[in-house]
């Protein structure tokens, strides 16, 4: 009986101490992590809008060049050039993929796409995040939806080359982008008119 009580006491004490340690670490790191994430989002917006910045002046460049707006509770970001950026998110093959899409002033072509977070297989699916892959989205028209074709076969202005060994991640990525474009662009376009 005594050993049982000792066992429960031990678990309770150890559990409380470790929980306290976790709470301490969490309360210390949470604000820093949130600041890092906010900074990361701003950096990604600047990259998508192709506004040059340095690692140390992200905040200043963002404040000076980008206007934060809202249309029907969808936040979006307008650059001086007339380009519009907004966030997208959706399920990849293994985990969520999140990032920023930028479109030109006429809401017809893409001007840039960045990925903030993805958990695809390193070296395979993760290659959807490489600049060389994301660069091919520039100047593509999205009115009829983007289409994924076999590597090296893209011709029409809405076709994107897939990646060998990353077919499923690339498929998921295109689907996320098409969903986000179809959902958000009309709303933002409406918002800009008003």
């Amino acid at each position, binding site marked *: 009986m005594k050993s049982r009580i000792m066992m429960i006491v*031990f678990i309770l004490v150890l*559990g409380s101490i*470790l929980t306290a340690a*976790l709470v301490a670490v*969490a309360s210390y790191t949470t604000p*820093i*992590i949130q600041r*890092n994430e906010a900074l990361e989002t701003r950096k990604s917006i600047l990259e998508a809008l192709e506004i040059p910045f340095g690692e140390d002046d992200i905040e200043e460049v963002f404040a000076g060049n980008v206007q934060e707006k809202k249309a029907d509770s969808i936040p979006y970001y307008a650059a001086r050039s007339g380009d519009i950026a907004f966030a997208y998110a959706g399920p990849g093959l293994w985990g969520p993929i999140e990032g920023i899409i930028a479109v030109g002033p006429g809401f017809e072509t893409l001007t840039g796409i960045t990925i903030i977070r993805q*958990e695809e297989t390193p*070296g395979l699916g993760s290659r959807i995040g490489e600049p060389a892959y994301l660069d091919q989205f520039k100047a593509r028209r999205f009115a009829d939806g983007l289409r994924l074709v076999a590597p090296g076969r893209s011709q029409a202005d809405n076709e994107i080359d897939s990646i060998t060994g990353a077919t499923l991640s690339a498929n998921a990525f295109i689907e996320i982008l098409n969903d986000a474009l179809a959902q958000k662009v009309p709303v933002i376009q409406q918002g800009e008119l008003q």
Partner: protein
Amino acid sequence: MKGQSLKTFVNGIWRDHPIFSMILGICSALAVSNKVENAIAMGAGVTFVLLATGLLISLLRKLIPSRVRMITYMVVIATFVIIVDRVLKAAVPDISRALGPYVGLIITNCIIMGRAEAFYVQNRLGQSLIDAFSNGLSYTYTLVIVAVVRELLGFGTILNFRVMPQGFTNWVVMAMAPGAFFVLAVFIWISRSIAGMEE
């Protein structure tokens, strides 16, 4: 005492090598060994958690009731892994992003659980820390060896520097999970032959 420490160290790094002798930690060794930088970061994370777990378990070894010792290891390991994850996210967000979900996977690394049960719960602090360090080192160097082969053949690079000539065709299979099975099996075969281990 000094001889004992040396023996503990050599056991961890060679005789009782966690991967080729005990076949522990295979899951993560397969998953993160496709690039050398991932292997190094994962090795460092596992080594830190091993040291922290060794420290706490060997200090508490006389207090831990034997019926709940497994739960105790699990809770201790999980706590340290979460701390590593949070600290990496706050201090070095770039590395944290590169490691992605693998930091969380340290919790399920059997090397830590295995060493806690086999060693830290029965040995004094000093020996436990030496054992933790040598096991962490073994895990890291094994991952790096496997990753060097896989990254070289799968991507033609080492630590992202181009090594193979431009015309080299990447062996895609090496970057994928089956490549890890091939390379790790060959590694285990060679090391077991050298160590003279027979079934």
